[in-house]
């Protein structure tokens, strides 16, 4: 049974890594267009999706995140030419490893969002939150010492 049916109050903790040039600007556009998404999403600004070290994602899950999403520029549009291609490959590998150890694929996601796609950003975040809500709390990889 999904976690949220037992516990209606469950609010996921979602970390979003957004590249400075496209998706962070897309998030800003979602904001200035007042396109809401749940407050569970907390954005960390990085220069490029290629800057997202797999260690950051593991750290987030270890510290209790229920979902992690990486947003970058559309393929071909990377401000640094190729960063998003590296991110895409790196994350494909990491996500399959995470699934192997029990962090479901739905908890991790890579999404391309341009600076003009405020609506897409908001839609993606709503969908992602819904997905995490249905998956419930992440129990794998959590640092047991951090739980109270």
């Amino acid at each position, binding site marked *: 049974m999904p976690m949220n049916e037992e516990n209606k109050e469950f609010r996921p*903790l979602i*970390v979003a890594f957004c590249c*400075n*040039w*496209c998706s*962070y*600007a897309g*998030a*800003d556009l*979602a*904001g*200035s267009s*007042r*396109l*809401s*998404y749940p*407050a569970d999403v*907390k*954005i*960390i*600004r*990085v*220069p*490029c999706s*290629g*800057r*997202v*070290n*797999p*260690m*950051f994602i593991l*750290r*987030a899950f270890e*510290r*209790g*995140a229920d979902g992690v999403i990486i947003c970058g*520029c559309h393929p*071909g*549009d*990377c*401000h*640094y*030419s*190729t*960063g998003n291609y*590296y991110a895409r490959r*790196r994350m494909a590998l990491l996500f399959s490893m995470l699934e192997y150890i029990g962090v479901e694929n739905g908890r991790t996601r890579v999404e391309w969002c*341009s*600076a*003009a*796609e405020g609506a897409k950003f*908001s839609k993606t975040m709503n969908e992602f939150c819904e997905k995490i809500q249905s998956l419930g709390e992440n129990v794998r990889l959590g640092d047991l010492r951090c739980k109270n």
Partner: protein
Amino acid sequence: MQKIGVFVCHCGTNIAATVDVKKVVELVRYEPGVVFADDYMYMCSEAGQEKIIEAIKEYKLTGLVICSCSPRMHEKTFRACAEKAGLNPYMVEVANIREQCSWIHKDKEEATKKAVILARAAIAKVNLNTPLKEGESPVTKRALVIGGGIAGIQTALDIADAGYEVDIVEKEPSIGGRMSQFDKTFPTLDCASCILTPKMVEVNQHPNITLYTYSEVEKVSGYVGNFDVDIRKKARSVDADKCTGCGECSAKCPLGKIGNIPSEFDRGLRNRPAIYMPFAQAVPAVPVIDRANCTYFKTGKCGVCAKICPSKAVDYEQQDEIVTVKYGAIVVATGFDIINLDKFGEYAYNESPDVITSIELERLMNAAGPTGGHLERMSDHKQPKDIVFIQCVGSRCDSEEKGKPYCSKVCCMYTAKHAMLIKDHWPDTNITVFYIDVRTPGKNFDEFYRRAVEQYHVNYIKGQVGKVKPQPDGSLLVQAADLLDGKQINMKADMVVLAAAIEPNPGVRKIATMLTASIDNNNFLTEAHAKLRPVESPTAGIFLSGMAQGPKDIPETVSQAGAAAVKVIGLLAKDHLKTNPCTAQCDTLLCNGCSTCANVCPYGAITYDDVQVMDHGLRETRRVAQVNLALCQGCGACTSACPSGAMDLQGFSNRQITTEVDAICR
């Protein structure tokens, strides 16, 4: 430990309406490192900045966290403010509690909680910030304009008049762009070529302008102030230095009469020879040989043009040439085209030669056009009596596969212009315009449209055309619905003119990718800020001019071209530019010289050096990565690729991002 000051902005009610600002101040006051926290109505105002400066001095702050709007908006402002008070500008972090919090959340408690978390993450990050110093890079005082239409021409002239050198790269054999195809311009009915041709000549004769026509940008590297651009000068097969532009070759080319090569300039309404100038006033007045169609290039026989040329300028052996030029700034003025109408089968564009696009109508009405300016049907060369104009063909379209969601902006006006011009010449023509809305904002625009309705009695019907059916007698049956009285209309027409949607030039995507300039879903280039920086790309040193940025008419294009030129002049006037200090750094003790980072670096900024290191008391020589700070753009690709964790990015270090993750997940 840093001494951090936290400043929470109300932004009027933009933030304060949904975030309890006072509560945020109370909750972050006891975060590690924070020695001072306060709130203010407008942090970016002069009084707000004064408050920050005072606090820096009074509490000897070493770090600042501003909880306000997006750092894309005011990070610069607050960094400058910190610098004024003697603090390193890179000791400032902005927590985005407006765009990413107050504006998207309704519940005050929830938004306040999130604002506190975002503030904590920024505080945790500032604790690990280090003062950074900007470097300097020289500026190449030369600009490149991609596209030689009216936008590119105006930008180049303005830059050149200010005393800087400009190169124009145009992929067609002549500059002039779309405007050179037009007959008249609205709302004054000036003749397009009468106002454009003098500018084209001026470009050609300007001592500061170099023209690369029939050329394309092949490769771009470098960064603001220091771009290296490879330009491919396609083989014209005519020596431009020898050619006098007499036109003998085009006149004698056997394919001119029998070749069936559609003229691109006349939108296929007439044929052209294989050696040709697009139009009589072409600049430069040097023909090109279309090698794909030329008999000599296909079979090795013919060679008439070479024999006939009085100045022996035809050169079949000419090769493409690639020149590399350095530029300080690049302006994209690639312009537009109209959409392909294959998906609009209901209008019978591909079936009947009497269904034409507006740009084809421009050619038909132009005195230099295929019919000498006499309006006639392409099927039987008779003058049309009943003409139907269909607006919004592909503009404001719900279906994304079929058309475009946006308004093409110029169609309402040019249709009114066409209707008036036709009525002026042939007053007994019946003209009907089917429209969704008539949009005429602009100086003297609505007056112009009303003249079409009131003086010229053009019949405007609000309604969409469902089908255009070619009839056996050669006429066209237009089936439409009048939306105002709900009636079906069946109308006979001799000619149907489609106001096809405008789209950015198809080549712009490739250029945007080369320039790493942002582009939106419709392939229009994105501005750095939609309102405040409308002619700059988010990529430094790239500027936007004309339709490449969005649909606009000629006066707007010319204004934007001038604005882009001013921005370029402002950049080229500087001798040095500050460089981004958020660059990669290599920890030589951890680096094992594996080359992984050098392979992923898009700028070739990483090289290897043998250095002496002391490891556990042993002195040894190791091959380690070295970052060239002038080339590094700070993307951080190397940092996540490095298997030993030796590479790190200043300003976005591994520790800083990890600590942000920790603060959010606390």
